């Protein structure tokens, strides 16, 4: 039946018709809402079709890591909440959640979208620590791309809190108007391969037939700042070339929603 499901999807893809009528290289409607959690220093909610993901940023001040005394800290966490899909169980993040977090982390960190050198308060003594937490609310496919967009939107929404005399955060005071040193906006496009067809933004129904996928993080300049291949089947160099091409073409669609 697995084979037959895949064959059925291929039949549709051959006509450039997805299970919800979209074209292969078309995203569902994307919306971004800012400031959805007043408890966070920055937050956002992203909807891609029926999929909904929230992200929040909490800031604190810490001592820097001993090997990087002139850099702030950045951490990305993701949780596939049991709330969002009957198949998700409560408990610590598993493989899928960890992958989502690490791939978003890669995009944000390696693109140097946040200049961690600008997060220093007192070199060697006190730096900002930026904690990004991504939580899925409703899973109808396409979590990776929604997660990265939500994290980015939450970072954009972030305003630095006031510090007290010890350079610790004063959470009771009103936030300042200053944002994070955010210079780039990497978005992730996950391209999927089934048979000889490529498509993006898979529905849960379509995700079952994935053979290989490539998540490509693209900056505004069109350069690639992170890659992650997944799926059981291999990709040829031509495939990879095509998939990066697709991601570069579609990144602006997601970025437009920010």
């Amino acid at each position, binding site marked *: 039946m697995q084979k037959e499901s895949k064959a*059925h999807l291929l039949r549709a893809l051959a006509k450039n018709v997805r299970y919800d009528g979209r074209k292969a290289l078309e995203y569902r409607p994307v919306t971004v809402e800012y400031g959805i959690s007043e408890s966070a220093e920055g937050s956002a909610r992203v909807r891609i079709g029926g999929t909904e993901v929230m992200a929040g940023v909490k800031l604190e001040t810490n001592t820097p890591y001993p090997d990087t005394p002139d850099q702030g800290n950045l951490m990305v966490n993701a949780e596939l909440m049991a709330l969002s899909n009957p198949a998700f169980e409560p408990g610590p993040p598993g493989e899928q959640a960890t992958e989502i977090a690490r791939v978003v982390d890669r995009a944000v960190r390696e693109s140097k979208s946040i200049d961690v050198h600008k997060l220093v308060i007192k070199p060697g003594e006190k730096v900002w620590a930026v904690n990004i937490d991504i939580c899925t609310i409703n899973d109808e496919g396409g979590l990776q791309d929604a997660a990265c967009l939500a994290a980015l939107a939450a970072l954009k929404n972030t305003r630095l809190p006031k510090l007290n005399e010890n350079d610790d955060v004063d959470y009771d005071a009103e936030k300042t108007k200053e944002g994070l040193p955010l210079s780039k906006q990497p978005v992730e496009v996950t391209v999927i391969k089934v048979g000889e067809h490529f498509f993006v933004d898979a529905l849960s129904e379509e995700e079952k037939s994935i053979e290989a996928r490539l998540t490509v993080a693209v900056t505004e300049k069109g350069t690639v700042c992170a890659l992650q291949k997944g799926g059981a089947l291999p990709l040829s160099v031509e495939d990879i070339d095509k998939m990066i091409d697709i991601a570069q073409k579609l990144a602006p669609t997601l970025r437009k929603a920010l």
Partner: protein
Amino acid sequence: MTEEVLAKDKEIVVPGEIVAVGMSFLPGKGTYREEDKIVAQRLGMMSVEGKVIKLIPLSGRYLPKLKDRIVGKVIDVLLTGWRMEINSPYSAVMTLKDATSEFIPRGADLTQYYCIGDCVVCQVVNVTSQKLIDVSMKGPGLRKLRGGRIIEVSAQKVPRIIGKDGSMVGMIKQATKCEIIVGQNGWIWLEGEPEGEVIAVKAIKKVEEEAHLGGLTDRMAAWLEKETGVKVSPQAQPEQSEEAPQQHPHHFGGSQ
């Protein structure tokens, strides 16, 4: 002594809501009597027919009933049969003798008949008090499903999706030229041209969402005509009732 209906026919009521007061009323399905009050047991739509007060459920998972025709998925191959997932809190078992009219010898490789992941149309033949469920594939229209897609709808909306004598699903089949089998358990199998399937799925979801609103049949006929250009009439289509079509030579994926 007051005799009063507090919630109107077709009104949505919440669990615990007092829907009528008076000893002359009869508490039907979904309601119960507490002293002189009739109380709603769950979220649903009121149905007041004379003195009988019933509640039409609008949500809730599927609970198997005898004779229900459902779509099931094989999740395990046992020694003497197969375990099936049926979109219910409980799984079902199909024993050897209920699987097919052929004779299955002892010790045969059961995966020759059905293996894990196979989807079938079957019928509920037994439900015990401990919720052990037996299904059978011996009967007209019961068969393995090949190809196609399976979507899920709320089991409570299935009667509306099928329609009176199959009229609603019949219209959708006619307009989209898809084969559609609606399981009482909320799983619906369909197969057709990709574009037709997309419209069929949209149509089914539209009926699901608007099931409790009036004038739906005519609205769907108009909607289907707009989407497909095919004029359909909401008439009873007995040959297109929920009985599945007879054994087809399976015809999926011709070019693959």
